[in-house]
């Protein structure tokens, strides 16, 4: 199958255009965060850093950032422990129901967010009778973050094979010593990558969060959603949106460099 130069050029142009459309809306948000016109009409006639100063001074924004960081750190921590255990179990042992366990890990992120959100909210409120709080958000986020750690750990262990662990056992190391000295060092960068992905996933999640956050806990995405429709806050929302883009894309870039392959990011 050979392609004419015209076909190649056409497809190259189409790819370029699609990528352009992918990035332009995000760049518009960045540009609007410096747009001096409060109504953000396009194109911006004057630039200002006033909104960035206002965002930095806003107690609501600072509080929301802190809530989001707390939630993301706690959820990542839980996901790291649970995801590692599952990853080791599924890549080193074969057992009955393995594919069901695999499906169970993916399910919280594969089902529509509304379903996961209402199921957890209903579970907390109607079944357990727990009040929604920062902790209910953490439990919800940890549940769908497990998959990112799990994917990274499993991919790494599959690639490494079990030879080194067997050698370690043959040489007399116990189960824990083998994990500490052989398995864990191999996993370290995979765990960092999985953890960064989990952090990014939790940090900008909105749908499940709206269902599991009570009145008290406000994450950064919830702050954006609440202030988006207030014209006075609109410029500051732009700034926060840019912060959210940076805070979710930077961990991904780091994770990608650490894991060395792009497949782990899906």
């Amino acid at each position: 199958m050979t392609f004419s130069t015209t076909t190649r050029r056409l497809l190259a142009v189409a790819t370029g255009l699609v990528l352009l459309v992918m990035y332009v809306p995000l760049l518009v948000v960045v540009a609007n965060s410096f747009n001096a016109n409060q109504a953000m009409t396009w194109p911006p006639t004057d630039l200002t850093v006033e909104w960035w100063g206002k965002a930095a001074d806003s107690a609501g924004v600072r509080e929301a950032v802190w809530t989001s960081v707390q939630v993301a750190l706690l959820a990542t921590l839980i996901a790291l422990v649970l995801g590692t255990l599952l990853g080791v179990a599924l890549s080193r042992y074969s057992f009955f129901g393995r594919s069901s366990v695999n499906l169970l890990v993916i399910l919280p992120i594969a089902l529509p967010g509304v379903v996961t959100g209402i199921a957890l909210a209903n579970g907390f409120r109607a079944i357990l009778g727990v009040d929604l709080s920062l902790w209910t958000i953490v439990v919800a986020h940890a549940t769908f973050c497990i998959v990112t750690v799990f994917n990274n750990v499993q991919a790494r262990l599959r690639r490494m094979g079990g030879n080194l662990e067997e050698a370690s056992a043959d040489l007399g190391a116990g189960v824990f010593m083998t994990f500490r000295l052989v398995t864990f060092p191999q996993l370290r960068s995979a765990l960092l990558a999985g953890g960064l992905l989990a952090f990014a996933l939790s940090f900008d999640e909105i749908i499940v969060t709206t269902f599991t956050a009570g009145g008290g806990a406000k994450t950064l995405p919830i702050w954006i959603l609440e202030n988006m429709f207030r014209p006075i806050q609109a410029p500051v929302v732009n700034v926060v949106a840019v912060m959210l883009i940076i805070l979710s894309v930077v961990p991904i870039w780091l994770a990608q460099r650490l894991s060395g392959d792009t497949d782990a990011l899906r």
Partner: protein
Amino acid sequence: MERSDRRPVSRLLHRWPAVRLTLLLATPLAWLLLVYVVALAALLVTAFWSTDSLSGEIDKSTWSLDNFRTLFENEVYRNVTLRTVGVAAAVTVIDVAIALPIAFYMAKMASPRARRWLVVAVLTPLWASYLVKAFAWRAVLSEGGLVEWAGGVLGIESPGYGLPAVIMTQAYIWLPYVILPIYAGLERVPNSLLEAAGDLGASNGRAVRTIVLPLLLPAIIAGTIFSFSLTLGDYITVNIVGGANQMLGNLVYVNAGAANNLPLAATIALVPIVIMLVYLAIVRRTGALENL
């Protein structure tokens, strides 16, 4: 021997792989089952309960099909369901139509170096916040926004906020999720097959139609599972760019929150679950699920 006698736990674990496996699986499985599976099962149960309209408390003693009756008989719910499925289908068709040529260029035409860059370029916006992307389209489509300005130059009118805006925004948000599985699927189509088709005299169009597309079908369906499922459950985008329109997710959210009718919300949430299960059952035989 003497050394391992001092480590009875380690020795036990070494001797019995089943004990090791049980210990590994116990905590994560307990978490997933107790938090998630029980919650999903409870959702199904709650759908049969009702809310006392006076006290606002959930009546757990009477089981009835009233919520399901409301869902089927009330025209509003039927219309919203149809609208949601329509939007999800439109988003899916648009995304596949855009993703196919892009993925083909990435997998079969670009140089290996360019390919790596293109994959990163497609992946990066995937990870930018969903909320920010919807917000970005609100800004782009706003009065005096980029689309109106650019449209003025080209002589096209901005669609403003409404269902077309919801479809555009959702198609935009889920596009990378559709491109990536199709790209991965195309990478698995051997170039030798395409060369053989060319050598045997097949035109490019025929080679794509009879060789590439049949091999690619599972990957395409894997992509559509993402765009379809994720659009079905959306309610944020439609709030942000959809004007007064509602999707199933809005009804779930309103009933769970402001209307304080968790049982009805649970019943409505079963609709996207059932639709997805039906869809998955239909496409399961194509092998698409292994491509997720």
